[in-house]
């Protein structure tokens, strides 16, 4: 069991790092789908080994919300926008280096915590935590709205993976609330981004500069 969950957590972190590296938006959206499917696989694996049937529902919700509905919404937001950021920006190399450093930081921070876990899934905890930190970094440094929202979703996926690996998921009511929350955030963000595109003809957030001081 440990081997499988560790491997899935590792693949999750790998998709996150690839997302930082890739510049093309459709490729990053596909990576988000893969990442969410890996998370669902993780939930199914834990359900199979522990007999917690509730996790199958979680996996179903993950597939429907995070692997299908949300990527489509992000695709709609970016429809007709150039596939890559137009300006030659910061190189992905530096961003990858920072992400690598964050993985090290994640291990240093969380190892004393995950060592306390009696669960066979504990080996994946630092990987999930690293995934969350890299997602947060991608969100904060995102240059357009879709990039920022992608980072946010990766951050959320990382926390979700952490919850699965450390505690086999949170109580059902909370879990349901979290799904609803992510869904509504993306829905609202879609509405706002569409309005921003109407007003500014771009999704580049550097162009939002009405409010200063």
């Amino acid at each position, binding site marked *: 069991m440990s081997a499988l969950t560790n491997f899935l957590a590792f693949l999750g972190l790998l998709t996150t790092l690839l997302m930082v590296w890739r510049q093309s938006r459709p490729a990053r959206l596909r990576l988000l789908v893969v990442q969410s499917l890996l998370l669902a696989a993780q939930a199914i694996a834990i359900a199979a080994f522990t007999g917690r049937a509730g996790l199958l529902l979680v996996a179903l919700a993950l597939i429907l919300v995070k692997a299908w509905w949300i990527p489509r919404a992000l695709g709609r937001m970016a429809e007709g926008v150039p596939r890559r950021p137009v300006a030659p920006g910061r190189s992905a190399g530096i961003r990858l280096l920072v992400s690598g450093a964050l993985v090290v930081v994640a291990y240093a*921070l969380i190892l*004393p*915590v995950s060592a*306390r*876990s*009696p669960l066979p899934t504990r080996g994946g905890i630092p990987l999930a935590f690293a995934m*969350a930190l890299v997602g*947060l970094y991608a*969100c*904060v440094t995102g240059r357009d*709205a879709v990039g*920022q*929202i992608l980072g*946010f979703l990766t*951050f*959320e996926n990382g*926390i979700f993976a*952490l*919850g699965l690996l*450390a*505690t086999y998921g*949170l*109580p059902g*009511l*909370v879990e349901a*609330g*979290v799904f*609803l*929350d992510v869904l*509504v*955030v993306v829905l*609202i*963000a879609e509405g*706002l*981004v569409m*309005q*921003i595109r109407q*007003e*500014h003809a771009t999704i580049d*957030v550097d162009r*939002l*500069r*009405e*409010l200063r*001081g």
Partner: protein
Amino acid sequence: MLLVALLAVPLVAAALLSRASGRVAGVVHAFAATATSALALTTAVVVMRETSVEALEGFLRADALSAWMVALVGGVAGLASFEAPHYARGADTRRFLPFFHLFVFTMLLAVTTDDVGFMWVAVEGTTLASVFLVNFERTRASLEASYKYVLICSVGIAVAFLGTVLIYFADVTRAGDVEHALRWTTLRRLAPALPAGVVEMAFVFLLVGYGTKAGLAPMHTWLPDAHSEAPAPVSAMMSGILLAIGLYAVLRFKPIVDLAAGPPVARRLLIGLGLASMSVAAAFLWNPHNYKRMLAYSSVEHLGLVSLGLGFGGPWGLAGAMLHIANHALAKSVLFLLSGRIRAAYASTDVSAVRGLLTRLPVSGRLFLAAMLALMGLPPFGLFVSEVMIFGAGFAAGQIAAAVTGLVLLLIAFAGTLNALQRMLHGNAAGRGVEPHVWASAPMIAALALLVLTGLAWPPGLAEALAAIASVIAP
């Protein structure tokens, strides 16, 4: 039952208002707002008598701390509801009033649920319900403010979720599959046995996450935009009470971390963030050019001050901080509501555009002056008393450096705000303001009268209520 009714009223009102319009909407709005405020005050009175009330098998629970917040939500929402109909007319009511009551519902839910996981859902719900209100005017500026608001607060709240997951982890690894593991009452009972390192780390994430919602620096960057772009009644609720709900969430975890890892952990973090917030605010308030942003930054300052008081601790620090939350809620909501009238009269939010406020709007201008003096912490208003309590607690706790720094920052903000206020009040009256009827100002006058009461002579029961809250927060 009481708590269920308290939550049901705004939720049902929101559902009805999404269908109603015109006169019907006005009646439903007025009825719901009155009922919500009345039920909130009833809850506070009942909790004072019985120490706590529960509903739905303990899922909803209000102790002294919750009741204090419930009463504040009721009071501020009541104040704001008087002005709300002026902002939403005709077809716009459906974009305003339903979200107004939904917003009130999420705030009440956040402070009355005993489940800290569900509290998280409710706190995020406050952002999602209010973002439509921030973007009510649909200008470029309000659009930008809404986008920043929803993104920064959602990321912040996700950080708080990370903290919640870690608390749950500490909980279940220590106690196994306990029933209701995420209930606050369970956590409070298990707290002394929880692993210190994990809880400490969780608290850092919780403080950063919920601190974002509370507008503490350096996570405050969304606040001046959202608070200045939202329509006045919404700004009043966001500044007056929503920020305090962010701190409320932190306060729920303070006894847990105090019991598990010792008081210095929370103390240092709260004092640090408090001083950072007061510094950021003082830097802006030294020379404010937009009065709505001035009020918004002043909220960063006052929430920083509350955080400082919570960090100083002791009976005076905690009671002072809680009293300051209430005083700030009253003064700031009145000021934001008045800022809406000022903006209607002068068609600008620039300090330099507002001249001769006292002659142009005689009633609103005088109220603005009184509320500003209250906000700056002058006697006889309550903020003076709560500030004395907070700094007294700081000196008593031996935190001399932090207390002196806080006082200096307060003084800088005071000087800058006073200067801006002077420029607005006097001079040749510009603009074409029409003063609403005096009766329309009655709720604000009542709020200011209440501030004088907390400043001069505490009503019976206030001291007991504050002591009861302090016993919830302090282990």
